[in-house]
């Protein structure tokens, strides 16, 4: 179907599908009663009200603060740790078990426990976001170093290059696409951590806003912060994919695996 590769056709199909979904949704809302199933129209009305009153922004800012702090610490700690783990074989073996164990654990399960132990303040939420981010960054950074072409390193060594120049010329550039992938996965996990923490810390943040409106059965208003989170997730993922292409143009996005 060569026709389907025409960008105009592609976008027509995409938008057409979205419109179809919205129509079915609006019809379903009308059928079941709009109190129960929020209609797209009702969502837009609620969104305008939440933005106008400044409520959305007031709840969004703390979330963004917690997210960026926890994420930044996670990257600053995770990248060097991952690079070191990838470089030194014994360190890799030593840390592989615990890191994989923590990575595969449904971290969300620990959040209520962490909140009780460390308190309900912002620093606890930052810690939770950090924990969610750091393991994917470590795992991918280490994989990046371990993926470096061994022949290249051998060659560099036989020409008497120092460890420092090996890092600069070979290791860091080769690992960069993997590090960026780890960061991208980390952002997705950071959002999950922040939202679940806000569900239970129950003071501020978009997570709390969702809970508040759900408990009042105001589904249309509860879906507004959800839409903000969708935008945050898609936006950050798109930004990192762009960075990926920009910073590592030699590594074809689909070919680095």
């Amino acid at each position, binding site marked *: 179907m060569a026709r389907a590769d025409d960008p105009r056709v592609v976008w027509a199909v995409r938008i057409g599908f979205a419109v179809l979904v919205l129509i079915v949704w609006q019809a379903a809302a009308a059928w079941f009663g709009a109190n129960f199933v929020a209609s797209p129209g009702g969502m837009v009305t609620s969104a305008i009200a939440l933005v106008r009153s400044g409520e959305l922004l007031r709840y969004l800012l703390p979330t963004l603060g917690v997210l960026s702090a926890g994420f930044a610490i996670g990257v600053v700690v995770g990248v060097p740790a991952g690079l070191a783990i990838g470089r030194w074989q014994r360190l890799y073996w*030593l840390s592989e*078990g615990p890191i994989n164990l923590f990575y595969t*654990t449904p971290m969300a399960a620990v959040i*209520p426990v962490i909140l009780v132990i460390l308190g309900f303040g912002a620093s606890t939420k930052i810690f939770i976001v950090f924990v969610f981010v750091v393991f994917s960054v470590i795992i991918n950074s280490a*994989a990046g170093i371990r993926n470096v072409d061994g022949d290249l390193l051998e060659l560099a060594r036989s020409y008497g290059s120092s460890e420092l120049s090996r890092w600069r010329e070979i290791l860091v550039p080769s690992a960069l696409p993997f590090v960026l992938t780890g960061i991208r996965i980390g952002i997705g996990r950071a959002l999950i951590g922040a939202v679940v923490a806000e569900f239970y810390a129950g003071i501020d943040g978009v997570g709390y806003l969702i809970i508040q409106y759900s408990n009042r059965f105001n*589904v249309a208003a509860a*879906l507004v912060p959800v839409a903000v989170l969708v935008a945050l997730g898609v936006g950050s993922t798109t930004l990192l994919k762009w960075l990926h292409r920009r910073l590592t143009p030699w590594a074809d996005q689909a070919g680095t695996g």
Partner: protein
Amino acid sequence: MTGIADEAQVAAHERRATRLPARASERLWWAAGLLLVVLFWQLYAAISSNSLIVGPWEVARATVDLISTGELWEYAQSSAISMTFGMLAGSLAGLLIGLLVGRFRLVEVALDPYISAAYATPLVAIIPVLIVLLGFGLTSKIVIVAIFVFFPVAINTAAGVHSVPRDLTELARSFCSTELQAWRDIVVPAALPFIVTGLRLAVGRGLIGVVVAEFETAVTGLGYLILSKSRRFLMAESLVPVVVLMLVGFLLYGGLKRVENRMLARRRGL
């Protein structure tokens, strides 16, 4: 636009990033790493002035308690039911949509951006809304798990169908194979390792879905056990279900990883 290809790439990264140790000295270091974490945790709990921080020893004792009262079993059973049915429903739907997206360009064009967007979204955010809509019963938990499981399975299945070399399908067509035969002999076998990757990623997400749904409904399940114990400041008991979830996640993930590696090895051997 290249969402599906990217996720497949991530899976390929992970394939390399996590693998089971092979040699004896490697195993020794590996075990030492786990032991060190436990020791460090116990030591930290002992010297910490915060009485809410409990060590692995207290957690082990609490585990024995919760098992002997039957409490752990009761709550775990409820979580297992939600997880099993949710995984089944979500993977079947994901498989179906993934195959359609991988096979038919029109379906791919229509769905790909939305599937990628949903995959990048923290789905936990819709859990409270879904519970308001579907109630506090088993149904809403199954639906939540199914939604969490659906996306990784669909994306990886589609990537698997895409991975089939075009030469092969063209060859099959020129030898007059039917659509069904092409699926059975070429497409499904080639996509299988990817589907297993999708299931492996889905396990972790499904567990998150179950736990957060149980936090919210607060009726039963391991999630509720965590919440109710931690609210009564019974920290050791609240960590028992966390350890159970940790082990379940690790074992399912590791098991599916093995299946995947075996499949990939066989595929390379061909």
